[in-house]
Protein backbone atom coordinates (compact mmCIF):
# COMPACT_ATOMS: atom_id res chain seq x y z
CA UNK A 1 0.00 0.00 0.00
CA UNK A 2 1.45 3.32 -1.05
CA UNK A 3 1.22 6.01 1.56
CA UNK A 4 2.36 9.60 1.52
CA UNK A 5 2.43 12.23 4.22
CA UNK A 6 0.69 15.43 3.19
CA UNK A 7 -0.37 18.40 5.32
CA UNK A 8 0.41 16.38 8.43
CA UNK A 9 -1.83 13.44 7.56
CA UNK A 10 -1.07 10.00 6.09
CA UNK A 11 -2.86 9.45 2.79
CA UNK A 12 -3.36 6.14 0.97
CA UNK A 13 -2.51 6.47 -2.72
CA UNK A 14 -2.80 4.12 -5.68
CA UNK A 15 -0.97 5.17 -8.84
CA UNK A 16 -2.14 3.42 -11.99
CA UNK A 17 -0.23 3.43 -15.26
CA UNK A 18 -0.31 1.43 -18.50
CA UNK A 19 1.50 -1.93 -18.39
CA UNK A 20 4.53 -0.47 -20.16
CA UNK A 21 4.56 2.65 -17.99
CA UNK A 22 3.08 6.08 -18.61
CA UNK A 23 4.52 8.31 -21.30
CA UNK A 24 6.34 11.25 -19.65
CA UNK A 25 3.90 13.60 -21.39
CA UNK A 26 0.79 11.56 -20.54
CA UNK A 27 -2.07 13.40 -18.83
CA UNK A 28 -1.81 13.09 -15.07
CA UNK A 29 -5.27 12.38 -13.65
CA UNK A 30 -6.00 12.78 -9.95
CA UNK A 31 -9.32 11.45 -8.64
CA UNK A 32 -11.27 12.81 -5.66
CA UNK A 33 -14.00 10.57 -4.29
CA UNK A 34 -17.13 11.52 -2.36
CA UNK A 35 -17.72 11.85 1.35
CA UNK A 36 -18.46 9.35 4.16
CA UNK A 37 -19.23 5.96 2.65
CA UNK A 38 -16.94 6.48 -0.35
CA UNK A 39 -13.23 5.87 -0.90
CA UNK A 40 -10.75 5.66 -3.78
CA UNK A 41 -12.09 2.30 -4.94
CA UNK A 42 -15.13 3.92 -6.59
CA UNK A 43 -12.82 5.63 -9.09
CA UNK A 44 -10.26 2.81 -9.18
CA UNK A 45 -12.74 0.33 -10.65
CA UNK A 46 -14.71 2.72 -12.87
CA UNK A 47 -12.38 5.27 -14.47
CA UNK A 48 -8.99 4.65 -12.82
CA UNK A 49 -7.82 1.43 -14.42
CA UNK A 50 -9.65 2.33 -17.65
CA UNK A 51 -7.90 5.70 -18.08
CA UNK A 52 -4.54 4.22 -17.07
CA UNK A 53 -4.95 1.48 -19.67
CA UNK A 54 -5.81 4.23 -22.21
CA UNK A 55 -2.45 5.90 -21.51
CA UNK A 56 -3.02 8.23 -18.56
CA UNK A 57 -0.96 8.43 -15.37
CA UNK A 58 -3.71 8.07 -12.74
CA UNK A 59 -3.45 8.95 -9.06
CA UNK A 60 -6.31 7.72 -6.86
CA UNK A 61 -6.16 8.70 -3.20
CA UNK A 62 -8.32 8.32 -0.12
CA UNK A 63 -9.39 11.59 1.46
CA UNK A 64 -8.38 11.92 5.11
CA UNK A 65 -10.44 9.69 7.36
CA UNK A 66 -11.70 7.65 4.40
CA UNK A 67 -10.66 4.28 2.96
CA UNK A 68 -7.17 3.43 4.12
CA UNK A 69 -6.00 6.96 4.83
CA UNK A 70 -5.30 8.09 8.38
CA UNK A 71 -8.49 8.26 10.48
CA UNK A 72 -7.79 11.84 11.48
CA UNK A 73 -9.91 13.26 14.29
CA UNK A 74 -10.20 16.67 12.66
CA UNK A 75 -9.22 18.80 9.67
CA UNK A 76 -12.16 17.96 7.39
CA UNK A 77 -12.81 21.58 6.37
CA UNK A 78 -12.30 22.59 2.77
CA UNK A 79 -9.08 24.53 3.43
CA UNK A 80 -7.44 21.43 4.88
CA UNK A 81 -8.80 19.22 2.09
CA UNK A 82 -7.18 21.53 -0.46
CA UNK A 83 -3.94 21.59 1.54
CA UNK A 84 -4.02 17.77 1.67
CA UNK A 85 -4.23 17.65 -2.14
CA UNK A 86 -1.52 20.24 -2.65
CA UNK A 87 0.68 18.33 -0.21
CA UNK A 88 -0.06 15.08 -2.02
CA UNK A 89 1.04 16.55 -5.36
CA UNK A 90 4.21 17.89 -3.70
CA UNK A 91 4.94 14.55 -2.06
CA UNK A 92 4.54 12.78 -5.40
CA UNK A 93 6.77 15.47 -7.01
CA UNK A 94 4.08 16.29 -9.54
CA UNK A 95 4.85 19.72 -10.92
CA UNK A 96 2.90 19.53 -14.19
CA UNK A 97 -0.73 20.70 -14.18
CA UNK A 98 -3.04 17.77 -13.43
CA UNK A 99 -6.51 16.81 -14.57
CA UNK A 100 -8.73 16.60 -11.52
CA UNK A 101 -11.68 14.20 -11.71
CA UNK A 102 -14.06 14.46 -8.77
CA UNK A 103 -17.30 12.79 -7.75
CA UNK A 104 -19.92 14.38 -5.51
CA UNK A 105 -18.19 16.36 -2.72
CA UNK A 106 -14.87 15.35 -4.29
CA UNK A 107 -15.97 17.30 -7.37
CA UNK A 108 -16.74 20.34 -5.24
CA UNK A 109 -13.24 20.04 -3.77
CA UNK A 110 -11.77 19.76 -7.28
CA UNK A 111 -13.51 22.99 -8.32
CA UNK A 112 -12.28 24.76 -5.19
CA UNK A 113 -8.74 23.50 -5.83
CA UNK A 114 -8.92 24.76 -9.42
CA UNK A 115 -9.90 28.22 -8.15
CA UNK A 116 -7.19 28.23 -5.48
CA UNK A 117 -4.40 26.76 -7.61
CA UNK A 118 -5.26 27.25 -11.30
CA UNK A 119 -1.60 26.93 -12.22
CA UNK A 120 -1.60 23.34 -10.94
CA UNK A 121 -4.72 22.25 -12.85
CA UNK A 122 -5.02 21.34 -16.55
CA UNK A 123 -8.75 20.55 -16.49
CA UNK A 124 -11.60 19.69 -14.16
CA UNK A 125 -14.09 16.87 -14.56
CA UNK A 126 -16.87 17.38 -12.04
CA UNK A 127 -19.32 14.53 -11.61
CA UNK A 128 -22.36 15.62 -9.60
CA UNK A 129 -20.74 18.40 -7.55
CA UNK A 130 -22.90 19.91 -4.84
CA UNK A 131 -22.66 23.59 -5.80
CA UNK A 132 -24.12 26.72 -4.24
CA UNK A 133 -22.56 30.17 -4.25
CA UNK A 134 -23.53 30.68 -0.61
CA UNK A 135 -24.71 28.33 2.10
CA UNK A 136 -23.18 25.12 0.75
CA UNK A 137 -21.38 24.45 4.04
CA UNK A 138 -24.56 24.91 6.08
CA UNK A 139 -26.45 22.62 3.71
CA UNK A 140 -23.70 19.98 3.93
CA UNK A 141 -23.67 20.22 7.73
CA UNK A 142 -27.44 19.70 7.89
CA UNK A 143 -27.21 16.85 5.44
CA UNK A 144 -24.53 15.07 7.48
CA UNK A 145 -26.70 15.52 10.57
CA UNK A 146 -29.54 13.76 8.78
CA UNK A 147 -27.24 10.91 7.73
CA UNK A 148 -26.01 10.55 11.32
CA UNK A 149 -29.57 10.41 12.63
CA UNK A 150 -30.54 7.77 10.06
CA UNK A 151 -27.37 5.73 10.59
CA UNK A 152 -27.92 5.79 14.36
CA UNK A 153 -31.56 4.69 14.16
CA UNK A 154 -32.21 1.51 16.10
CA UNK A 155 -33.68 -0.22 13.03
CA UNK A 156 -30.49 0.51 11.06
CA UNK A 157 -28.27 -0.71 13.87
CA UNK A 158 -30.36 -3.89 14.15
CA UNK A 159 -30.22 -4.39 10.38
CA UNK A 160 -26.43 -3.96 10.36
CA UNK A 161 -26.08 -6.39 13.26
CA UNK A 162 -28.40 -9.08 11.91
CA UNK A 163 -28.85 -8.82 8.15
CA UNK A 164 -26.18 -6.72 6.48
CA UNK A 165 -23.12 -8.54 5.22
CA UNK A 166 -19.53 -7.96 6.26
CA UNK A 167 -18.69 -5.33 3.63
CA UNK A 168 -21.85 -3.30 4.26
CA UNK A 169 -21.31 -3.47 8.02
CA UNK A 170 -17.75 -2.25 7.66
CA UNK A 171 -18.80 0.62 5.40
CA UNK A 172 -21.47 1.60 7.92
CA UNK A 173 -18.92 1.47 10.73
CA UNK A 174 -16.62 3.83 8.82
CA UNK A 175 -19.50 6.22 8.21
CA UNK A 176 -20.56 6.18 11.84
CA UNK A 177 -16.98 6.68 13.03
CA UNK A 178 -16.53 9.70 10.78
CA UNK A 179 -19.78 11.26 11.96
CA UNK A 180 -19.47 10.44 15.66
CA UNK A 181 -15.75 10.58 16.35
CA UNK A 182 -14.45 13.33 14.05
CA UNK A 183 -15.23 16.98 13.40
CA UNK A 184 -16.35 16.32 9.83
CA UNK A 185 -19.91 17.57 10.34
CA UNK A 186 -19.10 20.89 11.98
CA UNK A 187 -16.07 21.38 9.72
CA UNK A 188 -18.52 21.76 6.83
CA UNK A 189 -19.55 25.10 8.35
CA UNK A 190 -16.10 26.45 7.47
CA UNK A 191 -16.81 26.01 3.74
CA UNK A 192 -16.19 29.39 2.09
CA UNK A 193 -18.59 30.85 -0.45
CA UNK A 194 -17.73 30.55 -4.12
CA UNK A 195 -16.97 33.98 -5.58
CA UNK A 196 -18.80 34.55 -8.91
CA UNK A 197 -15.99 36.86 -10.05
CA UNK A 198 -13.40 34.14 -9.44
CA UNK A 199 -15.52 31.53 -11.21
CA UNK A 200 -15.94 33.90 -14.19
CA UNK A 201 -12.19 34.13 -14.67
CA UNK A 202 -11.30 30.48 -14.11
CA UNK A 203 -8.93 29.74 -17.00
CA UNK A 204 -9.34 25.96 -16.67
CA UNK A 205 -11.64 23.92 -18.93
CA UNK A 206 -14.41 22.18 -17.02
CA UNK A 207 -16.47 19.11 -17.89
CA UNK A 208 -19.52 19.01 -15.59
CA UNK A 209 -21.68 15.89 -15.51
CA UNK A 210 -25.02 15.58 -13.75
CA UNK A 211 -27.74 12.95 -13.74
CA UNK A 212 -31.08 14.21 -15.00
CA UNK A 213 -32.87 12.58 -12.05
CA UNK A 214 -30.33 13.76 -9.47
CA UNK A 215 -31.45 15.77 -6.49
CA UNK A 216 -28.68 18.22 -7.47
CA UNK A 217 -29.84 18.77 -11.04
CA UNK A 218 -31.14 22.27 -10.22
CA UNK A 219 -27.55 23.30 -9.44
CA UNK A 220 -26.16 22.25 -12.83
CA UNK A 221 -27.15 25.25 -14.94
CA UNK A 222 -26.05 27.68 -12.24
CA UNK A 223 -22.59 26.18 -12.15
CA UNK A 224 -22.21 26.01 -15.92
CA UNK A 225 -23.44 29.59 -16.43
CA UNK A 226 -20.82 30.98 -14.04
CA UNK A 227 -17.84 29.26 -15.66
CA UNK A 228 -16.28 30.68 -18.83
CA UNK A 229 -15.17 27.35 -20.27
CA UNK A 230 -17.59 24.63 -19.23
CA UNK A 231 -19.08 21.70 -21.10
CA UNK A 232 -22.23 20.62 -19.24
CA UNK A 233 -23.44 17.07 -19.82
CA UNK A 234 -26.76 16.04 -18.29
CA UNK A 235 -27.36 12.31 -18.56
CA UNK A 236 -31.10 11.73 -18.67
CA UNK A 237 -32.40 8.90 -16.52
CA UNK A 238 -29.56 8.99 -13.99
CA UNK A 239 -29.22 10.01 -10.35
CA UNK A 240 -26.46 11.32 -8.10
CA UNK A 241 -24.90 7.85 -8.49
CA UNK A 242 -24.27 8.42 -12.20
CA UNK A 243 -20.61 7.35 -11.94
CA UNK A 244 -21.76 3.85 -11.01
CA UNK A 245 -24.93 3.83 -13.11
CA UNK A 246 -23.37 5.03 -16.37
CA UNK A 247 -19.79 3.85 -15.96
CA UNK A 248 -19.33 2.79 -19.57
CA UNK A 249 -20.36 6.19 -20.90
CA UNK A 250 -18.28 8.07 -18.33
CA UNK A 251 -15.29 5.99 -19.38
CA UNK A 252 -15.82 7.04 -23.01
CA UNK A 253 -16.60 10.63 -22.04
CA UNK A 254 -13.54 11.14 -19.85
CA UNK A 255 -11.28 9.41 -22.39
CA UNK A 256 -12.58 11.85 -25.01
CA UNK A 257 -12.16 14.80 -22.63
CA UNK A 258 -8.61 13.89 -21.63
CA UNK A 259 -7.17 12.37 -24.80
CA UNK A 260 -9.30 12.94 -27.91
CA UNK A 261 -11.14 16.24 -27.46
CA UNK A 262 -9.12 18.12 -30.08
CA UNK A 263 -9.77 15.61 -32.82
CA UNK A 264 -13.07 13.84 -32.16
CA UNK A 265 -16.69 14.74 -31.35
CA UNK A 266 -18.05 14.12 -27.88
CA UNK A 267 -19.38 10.56 -27.49
CA UNK A 268 -23.13 10.28 -27.88
CA UNK A 269 -25.05 8.81 -24.98
CA UNK A 270 -28.04 6.50 -25.17
CA UNK A 271 -30.14 6.92 -22.02
CA UNK A 272 -31.69 3.94 -20.24
CA UNK A 273 -35.26 3.11 -21.27
CA UNK A 274 -38.22 4.71 -19.52
CA UNK A 275 -37.58 6.80 -16.43
CA UNK A 276 -34.21 5.14 -15.94
CA UNK A 277 -32.64 5.28 -12.49
CA UNK A 278 -34.56 7.18 -9.83
CA UNK A 279 -33.82 8.25 -6.27
CA UNK A 280 -35.77 6.37 -3.59
CA UNK A 281 -37.59 8.70 -1.16
CA UNK A 282 -35.57 7.43 1.81
CA UNK A 283 -32.31 8.32 0.04
CA UNK A 284 -33.52 11.79 -0.94
CA UNK A 285 -34.87 12.45 2.55
CA UNK A 286 -31.94 10.72 4.31
CA UNK A 287 -34.28 8.64 6.44
CA UNK A 288 -34.60 4.94 7.24
CA UNK A 289 -36.41 2.82 4.62
CA UNK A 290 -39.74 1.69 6.06
CA UNK A 291 -39.20 -1.90 4.96
CA UNK A 292 -35.58 -2.15 6.05
CA UNK A 293 -36.01 -5.10 8.38
CA UNK A 294 -38.81 -6.89 6.57
CA UNK A 295 -38.93 -5.80 2.96
CA UNK A 296 -36.81 -5.90 -0.16
CA UNK A 297 -33.98 -3.74 1.21
CA UNK A 298 -33.38 -6.12 4.08
CA UNK A 299 -33.96 -9.20 1.99
CA UNK A 300 -31.48 -8.04 -0.66
CA UNK A 301 -28.69 -7.73 1.80
CA UNK A 302 -29.46 -10.70 3.99
Amino acid at each position, binding site marked *: *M*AEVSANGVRLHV*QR*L*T*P*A*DGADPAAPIVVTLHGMLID*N*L*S*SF*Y*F*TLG*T*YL*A*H*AGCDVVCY*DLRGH*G*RSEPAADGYDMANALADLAGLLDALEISRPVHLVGNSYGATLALAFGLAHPERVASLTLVEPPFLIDGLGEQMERSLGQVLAAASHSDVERWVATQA*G*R*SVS*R*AMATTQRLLKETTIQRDMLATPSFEPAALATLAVPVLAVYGGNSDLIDQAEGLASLLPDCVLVVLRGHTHAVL*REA*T*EHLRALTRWWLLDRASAPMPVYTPPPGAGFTVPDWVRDKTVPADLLSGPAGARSA
Partner: protein
Amino acid sequence: MTTLDTATRPDLERSVLAEVTTMIHDVVGQEYAEDLDITMDTTFQDDIDLESIEFVALADKIRLSYGSSVDLVGFLATMDVDDVIALSVGDVVRLIADGVSGISGISHPADAARG
Protein backbone atom coordinates in the same frame (compact mmCIF):
# COMPACT_ATOMS: atom_id res chain seq x y z
CA MET B 1 7.44 -14.84 -4.91
CA THR B 2 8.05 -18.49 -5.64
CA THR B 3 10.39 -19.50 -8.46
CA LEU B 4 7.99 -20.94 -11.00
CA ASP B 5 10.09 -21.33 -14.13
CA THR B 6 9.93 -25.11 -14.32
CA ALA B 7 6.51 -25.69 -12.77
CA THR B 8 3.75 -27.41 -14.69
CA ARG B 9 0.52 -25.47 -15.07
CA PRO B 10 -1.39 -27.27 -12.28
CA ASP B 11 1.64 -26.89 -9.99
CA LEU B 12 1.90 -23.26 -10.96
CA GLU B 13 -1.76 -22.54 -10.20
CA ARG B 14 -1.53 -24.38 -6.86
CA SER B 15 1.49 -22.31 -5.94
CA VAL B 16 -0.12 -19.04 -7.00
CA LEU B 17 -3.34 -19.97 -5.17
CA ALA B 18 -1.34 -20.46 -1.98
CA GLU B 19 0.29 -17.06 -2.42
CA VAL B 20 -2.98 -15.31 -3.23
CA THR B 21 -4.64 -17.00 -0.25
CA THR B 22 -1.94 -15.57 2.02
CA MET B 23 -2.51 -12.15 0.51
CA ILE B 24 -6.27 -12.39 1.08
CA HIS B 25 -5.66 -13.40 4.69
CA ASP B 26 -3.41 -10.37 5.13
CA VAL B 27 -6.04 -8.08 3.64
CA VAL B 28 -9.05 -9.30 5.62
CA GLY B 29 -7.21 -9.98 8.87
CA GLN B 30 -6.43 -13.33 10.50
CA GLU B 31 -9.54 -13.40 12.67
CA TYR B 32 -11.91 -13.36 9.69
CA ALA B 33 -9.50 -15.41 7.57
CA GLU B 34 -9.72 -18.35 9.97
CA ASP B 35 -13.29 -18.97 8.85
CA LEU B 36 -12.49 -18.82 5.14
CA ASP B 37 -11.84 -21.89 3.01
CA ILE B 38 -10.36 -20.34 -0.10
CA THR B 39 -10.38 -22.34 -3.33
CA MET B 40 -10.26 -21.46 -7.02
CA ASP B 41 -14.07 -21.21 -7.01
CA THR B 42 -14.30 -18.82 -4.07
CA THR B 43 -15.83 -15.52 -5.15
CA PHE B 44 -14.70 -12.20 -3.74
CA GLN B 45 -18.17 -10.79 -3.26
CA ASP B 46 -20.53 -13.64 -2.42
CA ASP B 47 -18.10 -15.88 -0.52
CA ILE B 48 -15.56 -13.53 1.06
CA ASP B 49 -17.72 -10.37 1.02
CA LEU B 50 -14.59 -8.36 0.38
CA GLU B 51 -14.91 -4.59 0.58
CA SER B 52 -13.97 -2.87 -2.66
CA ILE B 53 -11.14 -1.01 -0.90
CA GLU B 54 -9.87 -4.41 0.27
CA PHE B 55 -9.85 -5.61 -3.33
CA VAL B 56 -7.69 -2.57 -4.13
CA ALA B 57 -5.33 -3.62 -1.33
CA LEU B 58 -5.20 -7.14 -2.75
CA ALA B 59 -4.46 -5.78 -6.22
CA ASP B 60 -1.65 -3.72 -4.71
CA LYS B 61 -0.15 -6.83 -3.11
CA ILE B 62 -0.32 -8.68 -6.42
CA ARG B 63 1.40 -5.77 -8.16
CA LEU B 64 4.15 -5.68 -5.52
CA SER B 65 4.64 -9.43 -5.66
CA TYR B 66 4.50 -10.06 -9.41
CA GLY B 67 5.42 -6.67 -10.88
CA SER B 68 4.84 -5.91 -14.53
CA SER B 69 4.50 -9.58 -15.49
CA VAL B 70 0.84 -9.37 -14.45
CA ASP B 71 -1.15 -6.61 -16.17
CA LEU B 72 -3.83 -6.19 -13.55
CA VAL B 73 -4.63 -2.66 -14.74
CA GLY B 74 -5.28 -3.93 -18.26
CA PHE B 75 -7.28 -6.86 -16.88
CA LEU B 76 -9.58 -4.62 -14.85
CA ALA B 77 -9.73 -1.76 -17.34
CA THR B 78 -11.84 -3.48 -19.93
CA MET B 79 -14.17 -5.30 -17.58
CA ASP B 80 -17.60 -4.11 -16.51
CA VAL B 81 -17.66 -3.19 -12.86
CA ASP B 82 -20.23 -5.94 -12.36
CA ASP B 83 -17.76 -8.43 -13.84
CA VAL B 84 -15.08 -7.25 -11.43
CA ILE B 85 -17.48 -7.74 -8.53
CA ALA B 86 -18.24 -11.28 -9.70
CA LEU B 87 -14.58 -12.35 -10.00
CA SER B 88 -13.45 -15.58 -8.37
CA VAL B 89 -10.10 -16.28 -6.76
CA GLY B 90 -9.43 -18.67 -9.66
CA ASP B 91 -9.88 -15.84 -12.20
CA VAL B 92 -7.12 -13.90 -10.48
CA VAL B 93 -4.91 -16.97 -10.02
CA ARG B 94 -5.18 -17.81 -13.74
CA LEU B 95 -4.36 -14.20 -14.68
CA ILE B 96 -1.23 -14.35 -12.53
CA ALA B 97 -0.28 -17.79 -13.84
CA ASP B 98 -0.65 -16.52 -17.41
CA GLY B 99 1.50 -13.52 -16.57
CA VAL B 100 4.35 -15.37 -14.92
CA SER B 101 4.24 -17.98 -17.72
CA GLY B 102 4.69 -15.24 -20.28
CA ILE B 103 1.32 -15.90 -21.92
CA SER B 104 0.44 -12.65 -23.65
CA GLY B 105 -3.01 -11.19 -24.02
CA ILE B 106 -5.81 -10.96 -21.55
CA SER B 107 -8.65 -13.42 -21.39
CA HIS B 108 -11.61 -12.31 -19.37
CA PRO B 109 -13.68 -14.67 -17.28
CA ALA B 110 -16.78 -12.86 -18.54
CA ASP B 111 -15.79 -13.62 -22.14
CA ALA B 112 -15.39 -17.28 -21.29
CA ALA B 113 -18.77 -17.32 -19.59
CA ARG B 114 -20.36 -15.79 -22.67
CA GLY B 115 -18.80 -18.50 -24.79
